[in-house]
């Protein structure tokens, strides 16, 4: 019997299908060919990207030269433009705003590798620290309300056809995006009558039941969420309540690096290098001059990372209803990911 499950945070329903239940080998993963073009993100090709914004590099070396570990550059094809004033206006019944924002690329390694597990834990820590630094810099720009850190791995996940070089992206936007607002509202609502953080409750229940836990460290938990939209969907959450990713502590950074390395190695092994997206969900920028703006967020929201393997087609049904059909139960997916030997 298929099951209907509801995501407790935003109320989205998911069908866990039993009729078409799929195991890892049932998914047909296409890899595509490695592009032949010279990669602009490799060490030595620094002149082929826009000017570097930031880098963790060997002391004494110059900007846009080799000998770095992590490097941040503006996007070659930015989705948002950084210069200009925000200008809001109406066109008849419609609202329009000019599109101000920042779009940066974090090149996560000088070597031409493609997945995060190929880095060492120390290198992943450098990547995390770089993200924190860039988000904190973008927060200073009062035009921005939200900053999204995400990764597109593989063509099906929106990755570039030009190079597979390991990188993530940051986009800062002048509006708080819909999806984010839904989650913030959902968790505020839950807090409103339970006076507990919904994500803390999820973590507690998952640790207790164990069936959907993929891995745990002292400070982090990785689970297959109860109402997973996609086969092998994974959420990574800090065990200690923190609304804002920016407040992450040193021991948590170490654990997060460990979890990222392990989870992506497992995912790649179980599904043969699937395309995936991951994104950081964290509290929006709070501005002192906007009293009441998400002021309860410290208590009711909890940052986390969502990983979505892109191995099923999102079809008309899902688009029209916001209702997903998942052919692999999260219990099954968690079991595969827990048990795979690296």
């Amino acid at each position, binding site marked *: *019997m*298929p*099951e*209907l*499950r*509801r995501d*407790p945070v*935003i*109320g*989205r329903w998911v*069908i*866990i299908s039993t*009729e*078409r239940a799929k195991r890892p080998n049932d998914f047909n993963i296409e890899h595509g060919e490695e592009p032949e073009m010279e990669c602009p993100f490799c060490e030595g090709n620094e002149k082929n990207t826009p000017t570097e914004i930031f880098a963790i590099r060997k002391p004494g070396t110059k900007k846009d030269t080799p000998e770095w570990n992590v490097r941040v550059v503006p996007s070659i094809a930015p*989705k*948002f*433009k950084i210069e200009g004033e925000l200008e809001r206006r109406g*066109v008849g*019944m*419609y609202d*329009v*705003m*000019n*599109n101000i924002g920042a779009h940066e690329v974090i090149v996560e390694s000088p070597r031409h590798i493609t997945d995060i597990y190929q880095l060492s834990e120390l290198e992943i820590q450098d990547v995390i620290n770089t993200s924190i630094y860039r988000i904190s810099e973008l927060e200073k720009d009062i035009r921005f309300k*939200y900053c*999204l850190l*995400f990764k*597109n791995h593989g*063509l*099906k*996940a*929106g990755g570039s056809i030009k190079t597979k070089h390991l990188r993530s992206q940051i*986009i800062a*936007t002048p*509006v708080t*995006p*819909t*999806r*984010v607002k*839904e989650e913030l509202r959902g968790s505020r609502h839950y807090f409103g009558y339970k006076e507990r953080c*919904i994500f803390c*409750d*999820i973590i507690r*229940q998952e640790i207790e*039941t164990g069936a959907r836990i993929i891995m745990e460290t002292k400070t982090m938990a990785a689970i297959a969420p*109860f109402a997973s939209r996609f086969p092998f969907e994974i959420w990574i959450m800090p065990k200690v309540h923190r609304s804002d990713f920016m407040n992450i502590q040193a021991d948590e950074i170490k654990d997060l690096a460990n979890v990222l390395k392990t989870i992506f190695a497992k995912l790649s092994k179980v599904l043969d290098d699937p395309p995936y*997206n991951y*994104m950081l*969900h964290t509290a929006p920028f709070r501005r002192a001059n906007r009293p009441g703006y998400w002021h309860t967020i410290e208590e009711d929201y909890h940052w986390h990372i969502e990983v*979505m393997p892109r191995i099923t*087609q999102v*079809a*008309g*049904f899902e*688009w*029209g*209803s*916001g*209702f997903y*059909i998942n052919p692999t139960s999260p219990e099954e997916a968690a079991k595969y990911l827990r048990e795979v030997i690296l």
Partner: protein
Amino acid sequence: MSQLRRDPITGRWVEVAVSNPKRCEEFDMKPQTKKGGTCPFCPGSEKMTPPEIEAIRDPKTKPDTPGWTVRVVSNKFPALKIEGNLDKRGIGMFDMSNGIGAHEVIIENTNHNKDLADLTQDEISTVISKYKSRSIDLENDARFKYILLFKNHGEAAGASLEHSHTQLVALPIVPKRVKEELKGAQNYFRYRERCVFCDMLAQEQQEKERIVFENKHFIAFCPFVSRFPFETWLLPKTHSPEFKSIDDAAIYDMAGTLKEVLMRLKLRLNDPAYNFIIHTAPIRDGVYEEFHWHLEIMPKLTNVAGFEWGSGLYINPTSPEMTAECLRETKT
């Protein structure tokens, strides 16, 4: 420079490339080729599908044999099951129920190589009248709260069988996306005492630049806040919350409009993969006077990537003004 535009219904923001939109010819589409082979939807293969629920067929022929023009069957691999009770329950903090629902397939014609766009206006009218009769029939089942009609065309849009068909799912809950739209329409109505879709229709008819096609009862336009390149909406010109109340004259005009739009997309973009979805008011919960049913067509020309998934903020590399012009100028 691009623009952020806000959808007046759901409040969703979309980035639209207004000053340097990607041009029609820049969408490089490879034509889809049909593989053929044994198809359960072709005449002669009727036994390969679950038993027929309804069909338009020669009165001298029997169910589940050839002699039909439009045929409705249950989905062989249903996402939801028709038998059983919902049995709603909680597991700790989580809510769940059994997956009860109906999942039907409307086979639009007998010819394996003809898509919906290739049918005549009369043939499409017959298909639409089946959408209507199945919607009305399934409403009688008290377990259902919503009826979703949609079409996946092409592999990239999630179609698993290439023989042209539409799907219908009856659900025991009102889906989230629908609720959001209803809520948006209700908020707008409360404030202005007008339907947001009727207002949109009026503005589109006045500005004209986003209109693709219109006839007496229907209008097709690329919405101001298009999430995807060549996104096109079909709206009945008369306010009506529910699809199932459509009359024969409107069905005929809807068929004509649908044919025009699908044919132009096919000619212009080399038969792109697309989804279309009928957005209608929920059943059984009373009447949603504020809502205006419509059909949304979403060609699959771009990949939805991490940013869109994470934020719900869509980036459209072209502009609806450009795509509407391009579709208007395409000769069918």
